[in-house]
């Protein structure tokens, strides 16, 4: 049971990552390879605010969000915007990777090399559910992730801005003709992804410890989660993330821990072979939906 909750908690972080990745993918068709570094940046900024300047948790979080939103916008401006038509080339792989190198090394130089402890929510209090020792922090991780996902989904379906996003992701040129400034939409998506990154960073930092390498191992899992659920699909991001978290938890119980990642990857590859559009593309979930729907 505890493993399950822990798996779901980890999974909720993967979901947040997948959501942010999906936000950017759906409007630009690329994945931001610097995303894991941005998460780290958010966590480190939060840490400094709390530990060095003694600011309250919430204020630190807001400052972290401001920093990561700004950095994501900068990444967009410097690494993506100039490339032009993104579907025709792979330069973005190199530029976003370059951004991640810069972020990682700047973080190392500014924040130091040693991992630091990061406070849990509710001061790490744990409660007992069905005999398992579960931290409130972990429960909050799951709840916050679901909360953010719900807000995003509602925004997408119900607001004008959400419709604009969907328009741009589906047909950027047509959207432009209809008076939607796809540049602004894309920029907002990058900004939102940055905000989500900070939240994810601050939530996972107590577990991984806050250091410039904290997202090294989980970075790629965010991408994996996004693919399992179907890229660009926000519901899928959650299914994918939680599934991956649970798979890891389950696999971890009977496989030597060194193999955990490799096995998780293997499972992911198998899923993709049979369901290239991600789990949600399976007929079970289709129910007559048009295959043109991306979000």
């Amino acid at each position, binding site marked *: 049971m*505890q*493993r399950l909750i*822990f798996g779901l908690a*980890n999974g909720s972080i993967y979901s947040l990552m997948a959501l942010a990745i999906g936000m950017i993918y759906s409007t630009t068709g690329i994945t931001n390879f610097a995303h894991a570094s941005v998460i780290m940046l958010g966590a480190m900024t939060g840490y*400094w605010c709390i*530990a*060095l300047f003694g600011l309250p948790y919430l204020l630190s979080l807001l400052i972290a969000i401001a920093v990561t939103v700004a950095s994501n916008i900068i990444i967009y401006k410097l690494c993506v915007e100039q490339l032009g038509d993104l579907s025709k080339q792979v330069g973005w792989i190199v530029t976003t990777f370059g951004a991640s190198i810069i972020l990682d*090394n700047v973080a*190392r130089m500014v924040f*130091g*090399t*040693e*991992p*630091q*402890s990061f406070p849990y929510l509710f001061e790490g209090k*744990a409660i007992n559910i069905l005999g398992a*020792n579960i*931290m409130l922090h972990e429960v909050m991780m799951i709840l916050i992730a679901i909360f953010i996902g719900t807000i995003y989904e509602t925004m997408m379906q119900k607001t004008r801005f959400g419709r604009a996003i969907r328009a741009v992701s589906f047909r950027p040129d047509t959207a432009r003709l209809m008076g939607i400034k796809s540049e602004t939409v894309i920029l907002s998506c990058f900004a939102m992804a940055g905000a989500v990154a900070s939240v994810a960073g601050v939530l*996972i930092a107590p*577990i*991984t*410890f806050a*250091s410039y*390498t904290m997202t*090294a*191992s*989980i970075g790629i899992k965010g991408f994996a989660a996004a693919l399992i659920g179907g890229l660009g699909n926000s519901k899928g991001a959650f299914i994918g993330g939680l599934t991956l978290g649970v798979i*890891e*938890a389950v696999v*971890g*119980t009977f496989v*030597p*821990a*060194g193999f*955990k*990642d490799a096995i998780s990857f293997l499972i992911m590859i198998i899923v993709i072979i049979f369901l290239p559009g991600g789990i949600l593309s399976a007929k079970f979930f289709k129910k007559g939906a048009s295959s043109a729907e991306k979000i």
Partner: protein
Amino acid sequence: MNKKRATRFLAMTVILSMLLSGCGAGGKASDSSEPIKIGVLGALSGGSAILGKQQQQGVDLAVKEINAAGGILGRQIELSYRDDEADPTKCKTAAEELVDKIGVDFIVGPTNSTPASATIPYLQENKIINVMCIASSDSIIDAQKFPYAFRIMLPNGLQAQALVMNAKERGYQKIALVGDNSALGVDGTAAMEKWCNEYGIVPIANISYKAEDADMTPVAQSLKDAGADCALFWTLGADGAKIVKAIERLGYTDSMDIYGYTGMVMPNFRELAGPGASRCSSLSIREWSVEPGGALNGRYLDLYNKIISEYGEYGVGKRDTNPSTVASGYDSVMLLKWAIEKAGSTDSDAVKAVIEKSGAEYVPFFGSSYKFSAEDHDGYLASDAVPVAIGEMMNGDLYIRS
């Protein structure tokens, strides 16, 4: 080939050949007014960056002092740092640059064992002495195979012996071994197994995990399931802390004591590991640990104060390095200085002979005395290591003996 093409061809070849002149070989400086060049190899970026940083702080401090006092044999020391990013290929290339292009006389480092494995054979070919103060794998020190390599750090084998010996003496019945699956962990766990064998102990579990993994609960679970009363950790600090926390989550903290090798210590271990840290101990060089309520003394205290005045107090946003490791970097240079002065030259064979024959005469800043010989290029004995509690550090960065 017509004339035009021939001329063009020739011109290009000439231009390119001129570039070659910049690629000439470097050479060792033997002129007595020329500086003594020391190269420093270590991980300065990437996941092991703390190691390179610690080594660097120590080396810089020593060289600053030495140069201010007139240098070695009247010659100033010139340092060249190279970041090997803990990558064997890059380390070897960097070593080649230091030796061939820059012409260093000596090398300090590398800080990681696999880059060292890749590089040391090359250094032997070129008769360059290297002093290692952090890399602890047993395979990189061998007086026969690698005659010019020396180390002033507790090697894995000795640490493993110390850990196992300690566990046996304290009478634990169910001893578990824990290590990661990197070169480090594999080497260390193998050493521990060997010494368990020697001491007639059968470990009840041998658990491995992937370094820097976020979720250490499987490790803790395995320990709990095995009912271990003592666990020997060959883990890096952050990973060890995560495991300790996971053990606490499972409510198993009070049932087990943990002893880890030196790599596990980090100044903020207690903070990261939580209350379970009080059951953790590690090893330290005796001289760089304090009795409960005591203090460092003598030259060690002096060096400690120097480190503080040069790099600041330990703390968030301030110095984050471990002073004993910085001291080891410092001592690497000091050892070389002493040996060069005693040999009266920078000739590698002469310096090597001095260290081997008279190493015990040197007064170290890291340990109490080194036991180098023609057969042994490791400076320490198992008795030089003492168990230290790592749940609490004095002044934030000094070990307290347990």
